[in-house]
């Protein structure tokens, strides 16, 4: 058992990544970014309401980890969930239409930005209570272990959530019962307006498992290849029946906590510096161009394709009707358990 600071750098990990995969990373990350920008726009137009937490800046985390998964693996996260849903293959149209609260949304418009689910893609939400998804993720892993398969669950949560009592409770149970769950701390350095330093004197979240016997690792979340490499290692650990694993992924959110956050707790320069020097999408773009894996024209084409997908999802989200009024009274009780149906 150990906790390691920093893991394989992208350059080293890059050796075993094909040009095709690199292009896919570029595509998937850019899709999330453009989708989120569009969501922000629709919010501004009043088409999306309530809370809306954008994932811009953190794209490499989910895209890198999804590259380490196989069919059957599960994922669960917080309210900052749009990126996770797109990365695991959920339809951008269904996600955007849920954001606008329409019938065509993943939850028929009844869940909203923070609450979406997909049985098909093993995406278990979308949770609005900070930290709640952590024991739920351990429970999903419990169900796989109980059934005797080798699936792994990714439980994503923030640096703020990491301080919740139920996270400590879950670490203890997960290691006690060797549950195949990867605790992914997306350390974007802020919980709303509270920086990590103002919330804890033990800011190395990857070390928090030591007390329970859980291995942990710190990962550069602006390097999708490093994330993938760390994900593969954690997945191998879990699939081998060795219990849970902690990945603290250092990342950064460019936008406010939610759409209504004026973000006065950090300087514009701080954000700008990371955008310019550390951007995960730009990083892959450079790898593609300097490695001659793709031409400018090819990348332009990817940009164009993504723009089309995003526009199509926005059109769908505007045109899809509001849910029928009868829907108010449905899905309160189930006749048969939906997961068994």
């Amino acid at each position, binding site marked *: 058992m150990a906790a390691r600071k920093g893991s394989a750098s992208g350059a080293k990990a890059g050796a075993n990544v094909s040009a095709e995969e690199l292009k896919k990373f570029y595509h998937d990350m850019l899709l999330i970014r453009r989708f989120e920008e569009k969501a922000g726009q629709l919010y501004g137009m009043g088409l999306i309401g309530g809370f809306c937490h954008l994932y811009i800046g953190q794209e490499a985390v989910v895209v890198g980890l999804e590259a380490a998964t196989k069919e059957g693996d599960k994922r669960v996260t917080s309210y900052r969930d749009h990126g996770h849903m797109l990365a695991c293959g959920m339809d951008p149209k269904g996600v955007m239409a849920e954001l606008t609260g329409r019938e065509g949304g993943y939850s028929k418009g009844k869940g909203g930005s923070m609450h979406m689910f997909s049985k098909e893609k093993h995406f278990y939400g979308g949770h609005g*209570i900070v930290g709640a998804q952590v024991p739920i993720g351990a429970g999903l892993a419990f169900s796989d272990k109980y059934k005797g398969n080798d699936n792994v669950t990714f439980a994503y949560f923030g640096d703020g959530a990491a301080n919740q009592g139920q996270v400590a409770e879950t670490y203890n149970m997960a290691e006690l019962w060797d549950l195949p769950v990867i605790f992914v701390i997306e350390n974007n350095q802020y919980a709303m307006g509270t920086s990590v330093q103002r919330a804890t004197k033990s800011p190395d979240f990857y070390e928090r498992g030591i007390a329970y016997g859980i291995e942990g690792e710190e990962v550069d979340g602006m390097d999708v290849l490093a994330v993938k490499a760390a994900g593969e290692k954690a997945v191998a650990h879990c699939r081998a029946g060795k219990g849970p694993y902690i990945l603290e992924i250092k990342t950064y959110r460019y936008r406010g906590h939610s759409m209504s956050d004026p973000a006065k707790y950090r300087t514009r320069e701080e954000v700008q510096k990371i955008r310019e020097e550390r951007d995960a999408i730009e990083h892959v773009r450079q790898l593609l161009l300097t490695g001659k894996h793709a031409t400018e024209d090819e990348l332009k084409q990817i940009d164009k394709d993504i723009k089309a997908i995003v526009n199509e999802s926005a059109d769908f989200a505007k045109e899809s009707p509001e849910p029928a*009024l009868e829907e108010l009274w449905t899905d309160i009780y189930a006749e048969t358990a939906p997961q068994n149906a």
Partner: protein
Amino acid sequence: MATKILMPALSPTMEEGTLAKWLKKEGDAISAGDIIAEIETDKATMEFEAVDEGTLGKILVPEGTSGVKVNDPIAVLLEEGEDASAAEEAEAPKPEAAAAPASAPAQAKPAEADDMPKPDTTPDWPEGTKMKTQTVREALRDAMAEEMRRDENVFLMGEEVAEYQGAYKISQGLLDEFGAKRVIDTPITEHGFAGLGVGAAFGGLRPIVEFMTFNFAMQAIDHIINSAAKTLYMSGGQMGAPMVFRGPNGAAARVGAQHSQDYGAWYAHIPGLKVVQPYSAADAKGLLKSAIRDPNPVIFLENEILYGRSFEVPDLEDFTIPFGKAKIWREGADVTIVSWGIGMSHSLEAAEKLAKEGIEAEVIDLRTLRPVDYDTVLASVMKTNRCVTVEEGFPVASFGNHLSAVIMERAFDYLDAPVINCTGKDVPMPYAANLEKLALVTSDEVVEAVKKVTYR
């Protein structure tokens, strides 16, 4: 093509705002992400970023303007190669495609064809069924064992449920029969294992989560309500938490304020939960079996004082009792007493005392609070014209309060007296023996209430 920049909505409640400051001038080049203006919302001053690139062709709303409505054009953005004339064009009003389809005002009520109560009077088990005497404790254990034999996805998890055989010995023998995979001792982490149970249910298992007592479920109530009860709705029916949260509820004896509370009304408040509060051993067994099979999260409120009581239980291989079906324990024409759980003890005792004075009470055991069998209650009240409810919980927002409201709405003309709610007193449970006795609802109080509504 020139595009209009619209006044953005920058908070969930913003309808209009002040354009505090323009940070770009007409003619400035703009790239996506540039801050172009500062806007004051109802909450804060926000920086407004450009989403597209181009040239700021024309400012339509000068800085300092307040009361600018969301979605009003505030500026015109020109694309590469366009000149100011495009700005004029863009300004001309265009018919807007309706963004959101309008909907008729919601009628927030499921249809009710006929308001007359139609109680379900079918017997719980066939006439002539052989019976055996069992304690509530044994009945609960048998229910779990039978369901665990029937469905291998059912498992029991909680503090001291396995090796210790249950803090109140409800899980006696289960570890031996089903092994450590299915009878699991947890650390003392209610919030954690309740959430873990919800995840296991999402993953296709049928967890029974035992709380050593429901007092400790307050640590877990977030997962019970936010994660278990609401997911089916939030997911549009895709996912839910078919599981049972069970354990002793209410006052035991002399355990003080933090260990003596009845949560029936609390959970009954929540759509998405089912709430069971049994009295007899047969009901405990038949209802727990139904709870384990139910595809929804069920709160199963037991009672420590009742655990050791013996009742007649049908000697059947498999029997269940449906939710939402009350049981009439005693028929009578003078007054309806409605109760559930331990309240039934006081109610039946009161009925005995009243009978000696010539008052015949009809005693109804609701058995489940959600769904609740209004029809049996209403039909009885229409017959007796008087009603007293009995529960252990606090008086404010008690379940009896709710029943009174329903009776008033649906049987107002049948009432000859106001409904009285007998409840625990409006105080934290005292420790002193004499005070505790005063704090709890008693059969004498029920008798007194009945006399009041029957004007004796």
